[in-house]
């Protein structure tokens, strides 16, 4: 199988490693967060452990460790293994992204 890295082009899937669902957002809690400890723990627990077992299209993290070392977000069908799109994680290419945004 080949995966189209937005930076490198199509590459053999063995160059990539899979992390999983890209939808959970990491909650940020400062050490002096006003939220209750239970609330904080629940939120982080969900982020770490709670995953839907999707049969169909899913947004996933993939790492092009055997290539440009970019983290990527892929839309993949978990049933057919078809990749619908592969885009760069927000910090992959930060020099360019930052420039455009700032």
């Amino acid at each position, binding site marked *: 199988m080949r995966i189209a890295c937005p930076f*490198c082009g199509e590459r053999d899937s*063995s160059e990539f490693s899979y992390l999983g669902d890209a939808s959970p957002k990491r909650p940020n809690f400062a050490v002096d967060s006003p939220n209750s400890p239970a609330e904080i723990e629940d939120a982080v627990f969900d982020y770490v452990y709670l995953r839907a077992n999707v049969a169909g299209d899913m947004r996933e993290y993939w790492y092009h460790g055997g290539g*440009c070392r970019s983290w990527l977000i892929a839309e993949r069908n978990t049933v057919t293994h078809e990749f619908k799109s592969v885009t760069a994680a927000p910090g992959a290419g930060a*020099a360019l992204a*930052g420039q455009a945004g*700032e």
Partner: protein
Amino acid sequence: MPDFTWETQSPLRKALVVGRHGAGTGAAGVTLREVRDIALVQVMARRGQAAATAKAAKKLFGVEPPTSPKAVTAKTATLIWSGADQFLAFAPHSGDEFYAKLADTFAGIASLSDQSDGRCALHISGPRARDAMAKFCALDLHDTVFPVGAAASTAIDHTNASVWRSADEAGEAVYNLLVFTSFSDSLWHMIADAALEYGLDAGHVSAVQ
């Protein structure tokens, strides 16, 4: 006080046996060379500094660094794309001079990492170079897909390598490889094995003319 001398050693000093190996006796199908005495610096643009980095590179090398998987040859160095916002500057070894010049040029706009000893450089050429490479490199190296100047960061035997294509004086393809130093003994054996059926001419050259 004893004398201290600092000889350099190639990571291939055991693996590389200069000469003709493998099938046949005539011209080898594959020519494999270690390129010794290299300088190599990884240049990583800082956040928001891609344009400034390109500008500084242009000033220093006379060419803009590649923004897609390509290798650009300038007078004093070859600039090889190595990932988003970064490239490798490849040049003959010159003590600390090359790194110092880059550190000066990119101060505050790009982070540098000296890889002069972190990678081992190889050249693969010859009429059967591509056949041998097909055994360990998943890239499509066809002329139309990977012409002179094309580059890639790819995995070879589960380790990272930079590959780019140049041409020799006769215009024949030369595939340049940068592999991690610690893997080079292992990869040399693998590449040599891949080439044996086509006949292998092994040797080394110096990047310093």
